């Protein structure tokens, strides 16, 4: 009798426990559900009376692929894709190069350089960007992808710490052995350490590829004054919510948001386990 009571209590706590998680998950998903539902709405403005659209349609997605002067989604997508690819190559190279030099190699300027990086990381990125904007304007590089790519990738070397944390776990003895066998430092880097560190390479690649998709501020500063066909997805979608446009484009904004989120989500899922390792650094070794 007593045992049965305990079992009852246990099942009821398990049910309660899962119901609690369910409620939280629903709260967290409400805006996402609203995003997806609204993107299938026939009405173009914001539906303020009901949560679900009164009439469903896929017109918003069709409209997205038939660009007008305001919404040029395919063009924006391509723009962002190009910027993301170039940034991905440059940033990944920079990050891995700096991480290898500071982690595996020992040279006199190593510590001072790392300390300078710590101090520079404390400056709000916004602050230097305002000045960078002037410099780019002086050289006529605003409203161009070259400028935007430079902004994303030039200082990317400062974000080397996660990759360094990973390289730190590469056994020192291996590198020493390679050096004794007459292997040049460049070969150790390219043929030994990089192949051994595939997870962190994947993380760095995805991370730098995602940056232009997720970023809003820098794109707004650099591309703001340009024409619609030159925007990235973030700026294009933001402009759709302008007060004069929102009633005609809100549901298209939602459709665009859904389309952009799908590839990003997939990449993000792949990356999330490295994300955790990165933040907790070498500290989590069990």
């Amino acid at each position, binding site marked *: 009798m007593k045992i049965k009571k305990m079992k009852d209590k246990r099942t009821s706590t398990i049910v309660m426990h899962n119901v609690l998680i369910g409620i939280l998950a629903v709260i967290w998903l409400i805006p996402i559900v609203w995003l997806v539902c609204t993107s299938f709405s026939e009405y173009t403005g914001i539906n303020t009376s009901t949560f679900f659209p009164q009439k469903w349609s896929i017109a918003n997605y069709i409209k997205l692929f038939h660009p007008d002067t305001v919404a040029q989604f395919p063009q924006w997508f391509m723009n962002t894709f190009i910027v993301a690819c170039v940034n991905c190559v440059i940033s990944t190279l920079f990050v891995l190069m700096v991480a290898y030099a500071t982690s595996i190699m020992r040279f006199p300027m190593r510590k001072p350089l790392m300390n300078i990086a710590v*101090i520079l990381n404390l400056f709000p990125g916004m602050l230097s960007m305002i000045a960078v904007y002037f410099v780019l304007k002086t050289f006529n590089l605003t409203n161009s992808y070259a400028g935007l790519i430079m902004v994303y990738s030039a200082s990317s070397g400062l974000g080397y710490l996660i990759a360094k944390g990973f390289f730190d776990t590469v056994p020192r003895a291996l590198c020493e052995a390679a050096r004794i066998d007459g292997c040049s430092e460049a070969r150790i880097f390219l043929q030994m350490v990089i192949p051994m560190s595939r997870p962190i390479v994947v993380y760095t690649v995805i991370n730098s590829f995602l940056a232009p998709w997720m970023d809003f501020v820098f794109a707004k500063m650099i591309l703001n004054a340009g024409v619609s066909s030159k925007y990235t997805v973030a700026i294009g979608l933001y402009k759709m919510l302008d007060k004069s446009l929102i009633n005609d484009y809100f549901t298209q904004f939602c459709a665009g948001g859904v389309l952009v989120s799908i590839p990003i989500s997939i990449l993000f899922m792949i990356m999330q386990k490295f994300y955790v390792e990165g933040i907790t650094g070498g500290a989590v070794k069990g």
Partner: protein
Amino acid sequence: MANEKKSTAAEAVSGFFKAVGGFFSNFGTAVAKGNIFVKLSLLWWGAGYIRYKQYVKAVIMTVLEAAVILFSVFFASQYVPKFGSLGTVKAEMVFNIDTMKNEFNDYDNSFMILLFSLFSFVVWLVAIVIWIKNMDSVYKLQLMEENGEHINTFQEDMKLYIGEKFHITLLSLPVLGVVVFTIIPILLLVFVAFTNYDQQHMPPSELFTWVGFSNFITLFGGGGLTATFGYSFVRVLGWTLVWAFFSTITTYIGGILLSLLLNSAKTRFPKFWRLMFVITIAVPQFVSLLLVRNFFADNGIVNTICSNIHLTGFLQDIGLVSTNHIPFLSAPGWAHVMIIIINIWVGVPYQMLIATGVLMNIPEDQLESAKMDGAKPFQIFAKITMPYMLFITGPALVTDFVKNINNFNVIYLLTQDVYTTTNQALANSQAQEVDLLVTWLFRLTQDYYNYKMASVIGIVVFIICALFTLVAFNYMIGGDKEGTYQ
């Protein structure tokens, strides 16, 4: 990552001076003890290399020297002499008799003068470093020859750059990028903070000039007429700190609780639930936050629902709301609370991911023995889980706080175009109740071209972040653990 952050500025400074000291002492010995060719290298960078038959290096150094001299004569000389005044000739239309047209005179552009002078200083600094290094390496060549050692050919020297000196090959481009796109811009803005560069002084049509500390005085409340700036600064700073504190703490604790909940043995389908929460952060912030902003708009869906269930009426009755809608994001107080709540929505899944990673590694035996000794779940949480979490993620917590001080996205995307301040004093200095220092700074530059005040605010933000990091690392965590895990 966390361990690295512990390097303090104090260490950085002392390390820097040590390096500088070593640098100059080498230079001193080279000048004092070098032979005639080494001494000649003081003037002609390539001289020493010619003596020791390193002709390619000699050519490279000579070309470099020539480049620096040409740069100084033809470029820097146009700007650096005007650095003291930042230009004196205002842009004007003058009638040109030759072309019979109105043309601009040969005017000064204060911003160009500032930018290119700064650029010249950096080039000269680098040139001096190269010059001193050059002396050092030529002197080493002399010593090597005296000792009868082998002197490298150019090819052998180049080989060093994929061998022992590979770090130079690796670091030169990234460092160049950081210098051009981070250090020079920061220095530039530090300079701008001491000028009167604003909407009334916009190059090229107007000049701006040095004004000393007066912008700082304005920000800290001095200067009668512009006293609103001091008032706004205190208000904005207060909210920035409140925001940073609450957003960090709420998401941190929320993340730990959520991850405990998800990772508990009682959870069915933990992977599925985790996926549900992660989806919300995989959607880019500019989509999700702009959406949430419309969700909570004055005439948005949430307000409709609230008035349908008579919540709005109830709040009106008890005097919390004076309008016929709930001003979620458009009135002070309401907006502050909503922003922190929405940030919980944004931030908790991130923290949940991190906490999950850390919690998986809590020594199982500790939890077991605590349970056997009859510890209640809450006691285990307070005495084992939390201290362990704090130990591992303490440094990340500090960085999170600093990141939140600079958390532009959440505030800007939620309140831009939606929130308008009714406080005249704040409006006079283009601030709002919900502004962080960074969003205020952004608005000052983007909409009001008030670069001088934006620069001052930027410097203040940096000082706050740097002070906080220093104090936190020295007193809370302390110690440099680099290499512990190597």
